[in-house]
């Protein structure tokens, strides 16, 4: 953490500190949050982070909604990779209700989650480039993120706030076009990623601006409960997908990339490498899907899975189940559950307490951005202002996930 910290004399009478507000709506803050910094010229002496500008009381609202209506709340946390939040929430409920998910659905979920992870890393690394002055990389990969959004659109009709999952599986099957596009993406993305990587890892300016900047050692990162790529950049190979596999991640062959120095450059490289691994996972999932029986896109749990509308109108049983689910007349176990998934930024946890009612008694989101960001102000002190900007990009703090 102290690698690039400059030492200065507090007793110097010539020190004239200036208070600088970085944010709340500064473009470099990537969202609505404020850092009140004390700066001595270009050097940051100390800082305080202020958050809460878009706090939307998700946890309170969730206490008043049936389980299936909480899906759109989760979409709006990390909006760069909303399907991961979405699936994480549904897996939590499925764990609570003891719902077993067919393999095909699990593989489909893996594909969606990995696509979302790529979309998330694309924007983070692209913007990191922009913040160092390299705009082209951002433009190259943005097309690919658009393509991922097209896949989401094909599957669920939405691009950003996807609302893609249901308790038990998906609302509808992936159509042939969606599969075609996924296959197309797996083919067209690697050369783009390679080009993107080469644009940076052989770039003198980029390396000078990032290597050694904001370096954090593993112990400090763990003490601040960091998770995700920024923790792995410090050398800790903690990844929820490997430690506690969910949605059949244990069936896949992939590596957990780790860094050495925990600096901005390592964070960039870890995210890049993770994208390669994600492609690898998607390829395997596509292969596995071919061996699974077609047409299954949700578990056979009529008491939790909302029946399709046409059946509700024409089938008595479906009507009854629809009524029971919507009116919350189905009992849920009185217990508590903690489920974590590997989000774009780290361990995204859902702590759900059920009292047997239609809504959670208490729902708490463990938001990785919230926890990762708390170290920003202490670690910035001593840095140059320009390094602090790049440091913020490399933490990939998403305001929706920070405030929740």
């Amino acid at each position, binding site marked *: 953490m102290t690698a690039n910290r400059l030492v200065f004399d507090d007793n110097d009478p010539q020190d004239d500190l200036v208070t600088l507000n970085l944010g709340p709506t500064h473009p470099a803050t990537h969202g609505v949050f404020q850092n009140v910094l004390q700066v001595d010229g270009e050097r940051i002496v100390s800082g305080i982070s202020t958050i809460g500008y878009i706090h939307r009381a998700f946890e309170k609202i969730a206490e008043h909604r049936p389980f299936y209506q909480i899906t759109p709340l989760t979409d709006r946390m990390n909006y760069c990779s909303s399907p991961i939040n979405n699936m994480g929430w549904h897996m939590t409920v499925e764990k609570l209700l003891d719902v077993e998910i067919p393999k095909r659905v699990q593989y489909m979920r893996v594909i969606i989650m990995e696509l979302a992870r790529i979309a998330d890393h694309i924007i983070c690394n692209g913007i990191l480039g922009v913040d160092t002055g390299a705009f082209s990389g951002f433009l190259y990969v943005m097309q690919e993120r658009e393509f991922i959004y097209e896949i989401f659109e094909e599957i669920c009709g939405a691009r950003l706030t996807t609302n893609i999952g249901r308790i038990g599986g998906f609302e509808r099957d992936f159509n042939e076009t969606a599969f075609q596009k996924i296959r197309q993406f797996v083919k067209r993305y690697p050369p783009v990623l390679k080009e993107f990587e080469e644009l940076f890892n052989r770039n003198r300016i980029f390396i000078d601006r990032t290597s050694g900047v904001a370096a954090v050692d593993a112990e400090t990162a763990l003490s601040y409960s960091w998770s995700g790529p920024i923790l792995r950049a410090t050398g800790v190979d903690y990844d929820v997908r490997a430690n506690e596999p969910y949605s059949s991640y244990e069936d896949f062959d992939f590596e957990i990339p780790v860094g050495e120095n925990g600096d901005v450059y390592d964070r960039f490289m870890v995210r890049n490498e993770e994208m390669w691994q994600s492609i690898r996972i998607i390829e395997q999932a596509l292969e596995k899907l071919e061996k699974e029986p077609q047409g299954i896109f949700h578990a056979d749990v009529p008491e939790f899975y909302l029946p399709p509308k046409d059946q509700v109108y024409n089938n008595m049983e479906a009507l009854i189940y629809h009524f029971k689910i919507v009116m919350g007349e189905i009992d849920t176990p009185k217990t508590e559950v903690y489920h974590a998934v590997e989000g774009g930024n780290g361990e995204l946890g859902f702590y759900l307490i059920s009292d047997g009612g239609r809504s959670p008694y208490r729902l708490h989101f463990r938001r990785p951005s919230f926890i990762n960001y708390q170290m920003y102000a202490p670690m910035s002190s001593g840095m140059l202002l320009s390094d602090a900007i790049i440091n913020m990009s490399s933490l990939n703090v998403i305001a929706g996930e920070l405030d*929740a």
Partner: protein
Amino acid sequence: MAKLDNQVLLERLEQRFAEHVQKTDEPFGLLSVETSKEYIIEVLKYLKTDKELQFIYLTDITAVHYPSQELSIAVVYHVHSLIHNVRIRIKVFLNGDKPEIPTATTVWNGANWMERETYDFFGVIFVGHPDLRRILNVDDMEVFPMRKEYPLEDPNKVDKKEFFFGR
């Protein structure tokens, strides 16, 4: 040492803290124990620093409000041993009128914002916290909104009343 499973973990805790740590439940394989505010920091420190347990990672701190109970605020800690890949949940029940508990920032730096958030929503005072201010809500707010005494209006009834639609 045998493979660290919940049974072994519980035995270790009981050995060290006797009746001050009790198992409450084990939902979905996650050991859930209860302790008192006098012992919580000792328990956390023991879990973190014991060479065999190595619960070095603080996953989360939050609280729950049970208005009908005498000790109505439960502070919940989720801690993770990355070495053994085992999680544990620790609960401390506090008096709702004056919920006070020592801060865990002495054990993990990361507890800082988690405790601020818990204070903001439930009014739990973390004694010894270096900077216990509201974090997501406005500073001059007087209530603690996640407590059950502040229910949201029922969306299915209130806004469907005709006078809201000018009829």
